[in-house]
């Protein structure tokens, strides 16, 4: 309906591209991921690794969404940012509440962590697969 006359290359979604931020994003992201990898290889206690890598991952995601997904409050991007913010609590609810529920459920319903091999009577293992 509109925009037939206007040059699409002048659209704010096009002019938002910025080589510097993309390069910065690459450098920062690679650096952070390298740190995360080194943390894992360093032989830190598992729970510490969990905390540190989660923090690094969170930071990377925030930086990336700002630098390459352009989630800011400018006129062109406002609704993108807004809808992302709407989703974030839902991600947390989906994963968090599920984890909470099942953490309790495993404790209450599992008799033992059966780590041993499949039952010889099992029909539902690879024996039944062609």
């Amino acid at each position, binding site marked *: *309906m509109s925009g*037939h006359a206007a040059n699409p290359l002048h659209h704010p979604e096009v002019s938002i591209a910025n080589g510097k931020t993309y390069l910065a994003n690459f450098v920062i992201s690679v650096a952070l991921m390298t740190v995360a990898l080194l943390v894992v290889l360093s032989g830190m206690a598992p729970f510490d690794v969990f905390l540190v890598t989660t923090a690094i991952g969170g930071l990377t995601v925030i930086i990336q969404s700002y630098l390459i997904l352009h989630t800011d409050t400018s006129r062109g991007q406002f*609704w993108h940012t807004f809808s992302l913010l*709407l*989703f974030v*609590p*839902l991600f947390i*609810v*989906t994963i968090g*509440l*599920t984890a*909470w*529920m*099942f953490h*309790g*459920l495993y404790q*209450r*319903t599992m008799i033992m962590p059966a780590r041993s091999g*499949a*039952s010889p009577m*099992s*029909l*539902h*293992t690879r024996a*039944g*697969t*062609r």
Partner: protein
Amino acid sequence: MLVHLQGSWSPALGRLCMKQLAFLHVPILEYTFAVVALLGLAAVGAVTYFGKWKYLWREWLTTVDHKRIGIMYIIIGLVMLLRGFADAVMIRLQQDMAIGPHSPGYMGAVHGYLTPFHIGQIFSAHGMIMIVFAATPLLVGLMNIIVPIQIGARDMAYPYLNALGLWLTGGGAALVMLSLFIGNFAHGGWYGFLPYFELPYSPGVGVDYWMWAFQLSAIGTSLGSINLIATIVKMRAPGMTWMRLPIFTWASLSTNLIALTSFPVLMVALALVGMDRYLGTHFYTAGMGGNLMLYNDLFWIWGHPEVYFLILPAFGIMSEIIPTFSEKTLFGYATMVIASFAIGGVSWGVWLHHFFTMAAAPSVNSFYSITTMLVGIPTGVKIFNWIFTMYRGRVRFELPMMWALLALSLLIVGGMTGMMNAFASNDYMWHNGIFVVAHFHMMVLVIASSIFGAVEYWFPKLFGFKLEQKWGKWFFWFMVLGTGFVFVPMFILGLAGMTRRLDYIPYTAWGPYLHLEMVGIGLYGAALLFFLAHLYVSLRDRESRRVGADAWGTGRSVEWMTHSPVPSYNFALIPHINARDEWAWRKDNGLTELHPGDYEPIHMPKNTGVPLVLGAFFFTLAFGLTWRIWWLTALSTAAIVIMIIVRSFDTDTDMTIPPNEVERTEKRRSDRASDFIATGVPPYAGGPVGTATAYQRLPEPAGGTGASSGGRL
């Protein structure tokens, strides 16, 4: 084949063989098939006889007009509603016949006339069809039609995607219908039981049918929700600020936000079932490290928001109808909006109440019990606001209003019983019981009543004439009676401890209640006949019930500012919005001129057959997967990918309607415009009660050509 299957399999036909053609050897299906085949032949014959194939193709099947797509959604919804009702009748009949160990059995059943295998399919199909293929398309259709008009837009943001969503839903519905005759349907409830739906316990194709039909409709609905949200956010007419948005549009926005966020989770839940069944993974298996409760978790993460996905547009409809027929502004607009979003938000934190009895920790159950009750707050607020909308109004009891009031009263019952279910210790007593069934049928009937209300309310907008009232009222009252007879005994049976999905009732003490329910089913059947009469008489006498733009005389929002029926471009000139309830404001100020001439060219998308063909390929893809016909699957997938790519190279997708054609169309429509608008009597101008003619019926036309116009339009 990757997974061990029972039964035969061949490369050409997969699991399909003569034995699977159920309509050849199951007596009930033989008759059903005969009837369906006759009806189908009759339809094809009629279209051929009247030479309407071209018209059907050009005007409907390839259309990208949001109103026509909406109408087709509603037709799918109504057809599937009938099928769902037939299923309900069969379930009730079986439970009415199979009471106590001495009840006789027929047609291979020990008691009653349906074996567990068959009734399993029927109640699964009933639930699935009613939720996914009746309620959802009906509401999606309504939103599709009304929202763009209400925000003063010409079309949806993505007309092409809109059509694709329709045909995906249609494909899913067709798949469910096909399962009647070829193979069988899932036999373990509409939401699926894991690990019951794993291959060892459900070796047939039923679960696959269920899964793929569900998946198709899920994809269709989420495409639709993206479309609607983008439409509301990006395509509002100038001046339509957020706080001027009509309340139904608000409801649609919140409901589609729910769909947008929750449907992906359903797709995952179903896809993992598929991987277990097709690839032999262990997501939901009882053994080998699967977790069967994971399915319930994922499914209800979608499932509970889905309930509000259905109820919120119903609330929106009620919020439109009640002010119109109370001849008054909606009470507490801002509160209503907040309440809608509060319901949508809370819906994301309540899903565990669907498996309160899974032995979660009491702290977990307490949390979910409380969050579930929280839903009661915004819902209660809505009920009060509707009551206060009628307060100091002038309530007219016309059909839409009657349906809205029925929805309101059912909502009170459903809300109360919902609060009872949210109380976890109650839920322990009747979790899988009939009480819960009765409760959610109350809520579903709230939705159904609103839909019937909406159909009555917006029908004249779309078709230019009102539905008649006499048979409509018979229909209404028999629905009320039927609801009472079916569901009051059902609540009592719930308190008796009766559980769901029984094929055979072992306790004769429950017999009388079940017989009463059967009476209710009879009343519903009568209501169905009245509904058909209602439609028939309305269509027959349509010329005498032509209406103008403001069909009810007291319409308030933007959709009453364009002609009835609405032209394909909705508005010859996009309206500039100055107030909430724009049309009421214009009438108050005597600005009822529908459009001031001086037309401009209008850009519209062109019709295209691609969505229909894509939908057909998705259907064959799902069919191939269901029966494990791998060549068909591969072929369909390739066809879909190629079609999407090829279509993306098509640049000839838009057209322009020149001003003189717009003018011609507008002139033609204005012949049918009502005198009311022409006389320009503003509804509230008179001040004191009774002097203003807020509502006028059209004078009966002499020659059947519609009322004469005021000439100005």
